[in-house]
């Protein structure tokens, strides 16, 4: 379906990177970064008001990235800022704008952001958002028919450290049932963090991409080693790199991993 889904289906150990749309109106920096990376990574994940801080619409940013850089894009949409009507319209816009992969998440709560008094939405939860996206692929929404279907390769997030451990399985199987084709974990700090997930019965046939996050001043060495360990270890289908405070460092990380 998408290049990204083909890579996963073909058994490739995928590499993805995270980019925040600008907190402004100029997309130049994002283009420049994506142009350097797009040939070396399997997808660029465009975040959605990450950390509950307002940025440019990820739908528009994703569309322009595809158009101007040819990057394979995964569009993140959160349930925090949109009700079911807005999620539907953004998914339709994304499909019209060339987006083929979605990552549907609940979204960091508003009190973690810079405007903690914001009214959170959560009309749908992340499982219900996947249900909605699966309906759009069939050419309908919760209410009725659409003029055209909008089909995406659907992704969801997975927690790595639930207490009790069985709790992760509940969400995992519901998301599979709702149409998730791949999963991204919360940032992990060691391969052992993935053990609990790997033991779940549904993990065997599922594409789980391990999240890796690097701080602005953090040494890249341990992260690169972990990524290489995961590549050979069979616990993950790929790694997702985020360096939100210093995204330009993604170039250095990707060069060493690709």
């Amino acid at each position: 379906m998408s290049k990204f889904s083909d890579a996963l289906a073909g058994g490739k150990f995928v590499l993805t990177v995270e980019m925040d749309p600008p907190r402004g109106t100029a997309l130049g920096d994002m283009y420049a970064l994506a142009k350097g990376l797009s040939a070396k990574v399997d997808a660029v994940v465009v975040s959605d008001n990450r950390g509950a801080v307002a940025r440019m619409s990820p739908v528009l940013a994703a569309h322009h990235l595809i158009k101007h850089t040819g990057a394979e894009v995964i569009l993140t949409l959160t349930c925090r800022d949109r009700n079911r009507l807005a999620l539907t319209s953004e998914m339709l816009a994304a499909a019209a704008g060339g987006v083929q992969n979605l990552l549907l998440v609940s979204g960091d709560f508003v009190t973690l952001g810079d405007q903690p008094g914001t009214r959170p939405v959560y009309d749908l939860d992340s499982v219900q958002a996947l249900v909605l996206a699966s309906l759009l692929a069939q050419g309908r929404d919760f209410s009725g028919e659409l003029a055209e279907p909008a089909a995406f390769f659907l992704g969801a997030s997975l927690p790595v450290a639930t207490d009790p451990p069985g709790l992760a399985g509940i969400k995992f199987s519901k998301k599979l049932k709702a149409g998730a084709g791949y999963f991204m974990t919360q940032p992990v700090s060691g391969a052992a963090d993935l053990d609990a997930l790997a033991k779940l019965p549904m993990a065997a046939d599922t594409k789980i991409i391990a999240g890796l996050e690097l701080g602005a001043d953090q040494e890249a060495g341990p992260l690169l080693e972990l990524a290489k360990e995961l590549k050979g270890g069979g616990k993950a289908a790929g790694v997702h790199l985020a360096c939100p405070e210093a995204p330009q460092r993604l170039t250095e990380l990707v060069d060493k991993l690709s």
Partner: protein
Amino acid sequence: MIVAERKPFDEIAAATSGFRKVLVAACGTCVAVCLTGGEKEAGILAAQLDMAATLGDREQVFSVGCVERQCDREFLEELGPQIAEADAVISMACGAGIQFLAEAYPDTPVLSGVNTTFIGVNEDVGVWTERCRSCRDCVLSITGGVCPIALCPKGMLNGPCGGADQGKCETDRERDCAWSVIYRRLENTGRLANLEEVIEARDHRDLLPGRQVHPAYQRRYSAHE
């Protein structure tokens, strides 16, 4: 019960500034139990306002009245004689009581003395915690008697969000993740199968103003009467 907290004194004092005779109307039910708006708290507020007026050289008189419940018309009638003497009333009841009082005495300005906070329980001495959002579509039978609407900040219906860490909530690492509590409760009672089905998107018409008529009174209040 309904829990409330008293408004900051300065806000209440400012709201009363244009009135000479002010009645502080306590409510003897929920807000009395949570030590916010009962007769004792109304008396304390009246005394504070009185002192502030004296210090500020304002000629104001504050009196106290109390009824069993401000959310019931027959109790509100008892306040009639006192309200007739007052230029304004500070209601110490929950938001429902304040409105019903204002509706019962539409010619008298009614001010709020409290901020209504939630429907909750008395968890310990002096501690009240929220338990219900009155959402009109109760899932407690499925979720082990633990409400994901009231206790999960995101109201997640199908399990924890990705922000939960080691059983704690992303909004407050001291707060238990509602879904961890739900899971344990269901595991304890052998009902984990409750969590297998996807709970569908909710009907949020609960956000429309509510009205409920007991079936025995349907005919009396029917639009087709």
